[in-house]
C-alpha cells in the first residue's frame, strides 16, 4: 500500500499564527493543515495520516498539554512539537516527559521550526516503518499452528532440535519438519533473523 503524503497539522487558536505557519510550511514544500482548536483536530484526525503536529500550549477549551494527554490515551504516536509564548521549565518538562518531540518558545526563527518539523517527519516515518514491520511479523506468527509456535518459542530460546523434541515429546525428525515450516512461514533466512523478529515484537520491559 502506498503511503499517504506527510502532513503537518498546526493547531493554534490564533488566526495569524495559523496563517503564517501554513505559508511558512508551504514555502518549504511541506503540506500543512490547520485547526483552530484541539477539539477540531481530535474530531477530524485520521490515525492513518502520517505527519507531525505543531501544537500551541495555551488554547481556550482543551489546552495543548491536555490534547497531548488525549493523544497518548488514544495511542497516537505522531510527533508533537509544542509552541508557546509563555513557556516555563515545569511546562516544558511535563510536555517532554509525556513524549513531546520538541518544545519551542515564541518568537522563534522560521528555520528553527522548519528544522524541527523536518526531524519530526523523519521520526514519524521511522515509527510507521517500525510498526509496519512488527505488524507483518505478527501476521506471520498468527499463521503458525500451535505446535509450530511451540517449536518457534523453544528454538528462539536457543534450544537444539534434540532438546525441543525432548521437551515436546516428539521425534527429532518431527521437530525438523515443524522448524522448516516455521522458517518458511516466518520468511526467516536464519535462526538469528528469527530471533530478531521475536525481539521486535516482544513487549517492552
Amino acid at each position: 500500500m502506498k503511503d499517504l503524503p506527510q502532513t503537518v497539522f498546526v493547531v493554534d487558536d490564533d488566526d495569524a499564527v495559523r496563517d503564517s505557519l501554513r505559508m511558512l510550511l508551504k514555502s518549504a514544500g511541506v503540506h500543512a493543515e490547520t485547526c483552530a482548536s484541539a477539539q477540531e483536530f481530535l474530531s477530524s484526525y485520521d490515525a492513518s495520516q502520517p505527519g507531525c503536529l505543531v501544537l500551541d500550549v495555551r488554547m481556550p477549551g482543551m489546552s495543548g498539554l491536555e490534547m497531548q494527554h488525549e493523544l497518548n490515551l488514544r495511542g497516537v504516536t505522531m510527533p508533537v512539537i509544542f509552541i508557546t509564548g509563555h513557556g516555563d521549565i515545569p511546562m516544558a518538562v511535563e510536555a517532554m516527559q509525556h513524549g513531546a518531540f520538541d518544545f519551542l518558545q515564541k518568537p522563534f526563527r522560521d528555520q528553527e521550526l522548519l528544522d524541527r518539523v523536518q526531524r519530526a517527519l523523519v521520526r514519524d516515518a521511522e515509527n510507521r516503518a517500525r510498526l509496519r514491520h512488527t505488524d507483518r511479523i505478527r501476521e506471520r506468527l498468527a499463521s503458525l499452528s500451535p505446535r509450530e509456535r511451540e517449536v518457534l518459542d523453544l528454538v528462539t530460546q536457543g534450544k537444539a532440535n534434540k532438546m525441543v523434541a525432548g521437551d515436546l515429546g516428539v521425534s527429532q525428525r518431527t521437530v525438523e519438519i515443524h522448524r522448516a515450516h516455521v522458517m518458511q512461514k516466518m520468511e526467516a533466512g536464519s535462526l538469528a533473523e528469527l530471533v530478531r523478529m521475536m525481539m521486535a515484537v516482544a513487549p517492552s520491559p
Partner: protein
Amino acid sequence: MLRPEMAGSNDNGAGGNKREVQRVRTIIVAGQSSDRTREVLRALSGFTNVIWPTSLESALAQTRSQDAGCLVIADDLREEPIDEFLQEARELQRNLPIFVITDPDDVAEAVSAMRHGATAVIEIPPSYAALCEEVSRALQ
C-alpha cells in the same frame, strides 16, 4: 578546588527509616567544582551515599553500577557538554533517574536535556526542595 570521593556519607545513625531505605542506593553528583555544585551537595547532605566522582569516566562507571540510585547533573561539566554526557549515561542505564539542574527560565536548555535523556530538569533557584523530592522518589 575539586573535591573527589564521598561527599555526603553521613551515616551517623540519624534518620531512622530513611536510612534503612536509602542505605544502599548511590546518588551520583556530576558537576564542575563550583558554588552551584557545592550547593547541590549541601542540599543532598540529608541523604546517605552521595558521591561526587573526580571525573566523568568515574561518574559513568558509578552510573553503570547496580547500586546507582540516581544521577544529578548539578552544573556544567568541565570535560564535555551536558547533553553528550547525559546521552552516554542514559545509554548505560535505561531506567536510571537522571536530574539536571538549570538556571531559571532556560527553557531551551531544559528541553535539550529532556531530549537527551533527563528524567526531569529542576530550575534553581528558587529552592532545592524539588530536587530533594525527586531524589527521594527515585530512591524508593
